[in-house]
């Protein structure tokens, strides 16, 4: 989770702790103003561009949401009221960057919010377990 400094939002990612193999995995990136005053965000893209990285426990990246993607380079200026949260959503269909199935196992999911800085705001990584498909 990106630490909340004087002028930084809190950025977190939410995924289910467990999903069945082959199931669609909902991904939610939350951007919150933790301060007691309005917070101006300088965000990349319309819609706001965000990346999600799924990696195995050893750090091997199996999927990156924006790999090979082109995003628009408009700068969005958004002001969050104190305590306000915006949510950015997508899903992962468990395919790797090579198109194969990720397969059962333990994964770590990390979100990245693209801003006007070359370095994104990065969430803390959260665990995701893909369970073997149920046998009939």
């Amino acid at each position: 989770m990106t630490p909340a400094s004087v002028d930084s939002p809190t950025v977190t990612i939410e995924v289910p702790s467990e999903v069945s193999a082959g199931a669609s995995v909902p991904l939610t990136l939350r951007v919150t103003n933790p301060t007691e005053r309005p917070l101006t965000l300088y965000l990349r893209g319309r819609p706001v561009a965000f990346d999600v990285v799924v990696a195995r426990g050893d750090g091997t990246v199996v999927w990156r949401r924006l790999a090979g993607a082109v995003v628009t380079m408009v700068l969005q200026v958004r002001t969050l009221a104190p305590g306000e949260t915006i949510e950015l959503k997508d899903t992962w269909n468990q395919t790797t960057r090579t198109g194969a199935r990720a397969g059962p196992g333990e994964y770590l999911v990390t979100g990245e919010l693209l801003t006007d800085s070359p370095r994104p705001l990065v969430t803390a990584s959260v665990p995701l377990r893909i369970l073997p498909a149920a046998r009939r």
Partner: protein
Amino acid sequence: MTRPRAAARALVAGGILVVVGACSDVSNRTGPSQPSVDASLRPNVQQATADDPVALLHGVRGFGGFFLDRAGAPTVYLTDTSERGAAERALAPFFAAHGMDASGLRVLRGDFEHARLESWFEQASPEALAVPGAVFAYLDEASNRLRIGVAHGAAGTEVGRALAALGIPTAAVIVEQTAPIRQLATLQDRIRPVPAGVQIDFILGICSLGFNAVHVATSQLSFITASHCTWVQGGVEGTIYYQNTWLDLSGNNDVIGTEVADPVYFSRHGVCPRRRVCRYSDAARAAYSIAGSDVALGTIATTTGVNTLATDITGGFAINTTAPEYGSDHFTVGSTVNKVGRTTGWTSAPVTATCVNVNVVGVDGTLITQLCQTLAGSEAPGSQVIVGAGDSGSPVFLLNADQTAQLGGVLWGGNAAGTLIAFSPLKNVQSELGDLRVIGP
């Protein structure tokens, strides 16, 4: 994340003092003799520190100035060069602090004592700088004179007159012609006349101004930017543009124009993929609402260097008059294209793919395919950053050997790392927005 832009920075006069250097050695110098300065003019030397050699030397009889010459040698002006020993002793803390040897001290014969010059400077500076065309005034340690910069000869004459009226000897003042010192503006500042590459604001976001042009069919003085830099991507809804910002607290009216052309995205199967809408350019045209004299037709702002990510404006690329536009929608892979945008300034990269159909998510979540686009840069880890948020709409151009620009397109996208750009070729822009004349009459 960056904060809103502060005002442009000013050059500091102190920078001038450092670069002045050349002088003659004691054997070559002659000049008027000068009575010794009244002791009351001498500053208190009790507070001198090792870091302030001028203060250390103020107690030395005939001291006229101290500086490091171009080779870095400590150099002192003395009206009486026999005082060298006193100067060496006074500078002992300075030499010790900087690891220097007193024997390396150069002594130049001075014409004027430093305290006298300081006194003259206090009188001269306000009078000289009140003259229209005066640029700077300082006590030049390296020439044992006052130095006054003026923008033109008439100002020099007037300054000379003012200083003579104060009784300051002509020989004690160097009046030199110099370029006016201007505040450095950035691509994110309010710039008039408006060149290509500067920031535009449409309330819902911030982009870059692609290029200025006359729309041939309507004769409208216009500028081009990205279609997604309008209130609705595709279709005309009269987006209002500000340069540089709609939140101008200085009271300026920054409105510069209104969107007048932004073709709707089409869904012709056979050309456009199913469930997607397409265009050949991510570009829109706005008609200027400001005077033509406030528009820099044929000019792209340039910054302090390519691929430095600097945004300080240092001039402009003129669009080549004989070949103002690149005529094809195909660019040679490996050829270099440039862009200037409000976020990452002037950057360049080799073309990596041409006439590429690119899927992208539109402003409202619509699935869009941009047809026949060009990609430049690299996705390899560690590649040079060449684009950032706010660069959408930037002019993309080829640079000729004579540093003139040939306009090639309008930037609209990039990869997440900012190391690759996607742009719409100018040929596609004109096929959708109509013919555009990008240079002056």
